[in-house]
């Protein structure tokens, strides 16, 4: 290895990785684009060149509706006998935190002179956010979505199309998120010179995990200031759900240096944490709690995988958490003990959904309901002052919740038998 190689690697260690995680495990054809993006990230995002971050923040305020409120949850506070505050990302345009990232990346693509936007989507939240951002910024946009997900998430498909995006069905494998990501990467490998791939979470090759985190970090920045104003001090703990981990890192980032603030990343416990090794099937997507290190979709991170290294099918009642990987920075923060991984199963998440709807008049996304479910299960360890990120609204989940509630005897659910009448 030459000296310059050595140097190159040292530099990479600090920039492209988080401890042992991260990196750029992509086909050679994509490397120049990934490096171009690194450059753009540094210039526009880190150094605000051409006023990029100013424009981003302005558009997030005017178009996106930032800042979002930090609301005291009166009845949850009473129930858990501590102060519970909700960060209301459900009020963001599009109905979830996803727009923070989508708008940031589409705007960045524009600054980079790209002519076309592609993105993957699972439940459709990132797809709709990207389609909205692309319409807003006048960029042609194509979204890859698994055929199974298309059939399950019609309204989000309609929304994307109404915003002028094309929706490309992916039929491989189980035809859900994982396959959609694979297919988007393939599109990108073909069109990389003119196209920007808007990755939907803090995953993928460097610089995506940092780029997405920095666009989402506004959640925690606002929340940190708001809680100090409201409660006069920093919270004892901050709770967010984790799929890929973008709302998670977005909420945590500003608090990471605050050692006294405990950070809880709540994953989908699905129906069980036990893994079916035989069939390479995880009935959960609790990657941080149960996963092992490996490479998926461009980064070294914790994964749900078989002994051989095959990626498992993950499962959760919440489509947006249903992913076998997780952001590399979160993997690192869990390994170093800064972030505590937790998991909440389907049933507890459904109860969390009903509890917030019923007690606070906020219908949360099923993803966010995992963070809320954690309050019920483990509020004692959270301290006296707790911030929970409500990453999105649950309008998209009504049918699923109804179906899943009908199957169960849920403590917090209303009588759904009468709903159909």
């Amino acid at each position, binding site marked *: *290895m*030459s000296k310059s*190689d050595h140097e*190159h*690697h040292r530099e*990479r260690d600090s920039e*492209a990785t988080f*401890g*042992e995680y991260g*990196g*750029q*495990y*992509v*086909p*050679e*054809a*994509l*490397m*120049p*684009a990934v*490096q171009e993006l690194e450059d753009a990230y540094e210039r526009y995002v880190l150094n605000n060149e051409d006023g990029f971050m100013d424009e981003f923040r302005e558009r997030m305020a005017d178009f996106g509706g930032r800042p979002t409120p930090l609301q005291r949850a009166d009845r949850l506070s009473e129930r858990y006998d501590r102060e519970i505050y909700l960060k209301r990302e459900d009020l963001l345009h599009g109905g979830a935190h996803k727009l923070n990232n989508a708008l940031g990346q589409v705007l960045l693509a524009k600054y980079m002179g790209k002519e076309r936007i592609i993105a993957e989507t699972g439940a459709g939240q990132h797809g709709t956010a990207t389609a909205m951002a692309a319409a807003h910024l006048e960029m042609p946009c194509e979204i890859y979505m698994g055929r199974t997900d298309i059939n399950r998430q019609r309204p989000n498909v309609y929304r994307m199309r109404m915003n002028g995006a094309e929706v490309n069905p992916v039929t*491989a*494998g189980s035809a859900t998120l*994982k396959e959609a990501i*694979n297919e988007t*990467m*393939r599109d990108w*490998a*073909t*069109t*990389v*010179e003119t196209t920007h791939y808007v990755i939907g979470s803090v995953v993928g090759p460097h610089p995506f995990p940092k780029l997405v985190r920095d666009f989402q970090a506004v959640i925690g920045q606002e929340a940190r200031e708001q809680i100090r104003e409201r409660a006069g001090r920093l919270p004892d703990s901050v709770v967010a759900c984790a799929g890929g981990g973008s709302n998670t890192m977005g909420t945590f980032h500003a608090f990471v240096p605050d050692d006294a603030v405990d950070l809880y990343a709540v994953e989908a416990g699905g129906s069980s*944490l036990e893994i079916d090794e035989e069939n*390479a099937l995880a009935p959960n997507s609790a990657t*941080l*709690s*149960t*996963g*092992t*290190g*490996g*490479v*998926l*979709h*461009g980064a070294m991170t*914790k*994964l749900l*995988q078989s*002994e*051989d*290294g*095959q*990626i498992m099918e993950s499962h959760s009642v919440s489509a947006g958490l249903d992913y076998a990987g997780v952001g590399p920075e979160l993997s690192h923060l*869990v*390994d*170093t*003990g800064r972030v505590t991984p937790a998991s909440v199963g389907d049933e507890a998440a459904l109860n969390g959904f009903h509890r917030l709807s019923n007690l606070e008049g906020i219908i949360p996304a099923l993803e966010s309901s995992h963070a809320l479910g954690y309050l019920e299960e483990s509020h004692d360890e959270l301290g006296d002052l707790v911030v929970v990120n409500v990453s999105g609204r649950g309008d998209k989940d009504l049918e699923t919740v109804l179906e899943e509630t009908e199957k169960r005897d849920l403590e917090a659910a209303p009588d759904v038998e009468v709903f159909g009448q």
Partner: protein
Amino acid sequence: MSDIEAAIRDNHPALITYLTAGDPSLEDTKAYVEALDRGGADLIELGLPFSEPIAEGPTIQAAINRALDAGTTPAGFFELVDELETEAPLLVMTYYNMILQYGDSEAPRASESDAAPPQSKPDVRLFVERAAEVGLSGIIVPDLPAEESEPLRAACDEHGLDLVFIVAPTTEGERLETIMSQVSGFAYVQARLGTTGARADVSNATHDSLARLSAYDVPKAVGFGVSKGDHAAEIIEAGADGVIVGSALIDIVAESDTPAIDLEAKAEELKRGAIRGTDGTGEDEIDAPEPEQP
């Protein structure tokens, strides 16, 4: 000079073939590899299937799914290679996670323990060790760019295996130099942007890439989209030292009633095409009709 480099230089213009191991079974793969060897393949890539093949087009994706459904594992793969006795050296083509996880079954899952201890980075040496043991001559990893290849390259060096890098149409300038300075075996020249898959023509990007690489004295083999003798001829004529053919062979595996026979014949056709490329003649009338595109 490594086995691989020798196989290309000695058999110039070289035919390099790809099959997915375990499609439709490891037994069948054995027979097919032997057929390709007979048909004139100078170097044979065997795909160790990974569940997320992001660099492959529909043809190889389907082959990988068939192989996984058939229960193909790294252990079985290595046994197959161990049994094979081909004239052509063998390379394994797989995704990086398969290499990382190999033999790592003892690694504790992060779960139960109170504060999960930092996991030691998975070790790639076990895979390379085993690859060397069963007689593989090299490794190609489509999702491992030069920037991330240090650990694997070190292990390959240690065990005398070639780590083959891909040069894409987008690889230019400083990166091209870095990669070419690390080339071992041959440079895998990606014929066009996109994924693997048989195509009806040879892309302009191929000519551009070969022109860009002409100054480097390393064997260059062109893959991605090569499906018939004419392509091979054109590519060799443009300055390549070898052609790499995959999806066109997998079509035969998937569709033919006599795959071994047809694979052997296809290898012959391709090799003939390649040779024709060295003396600048045009069409080869005895080319088989273009196969159906999937």
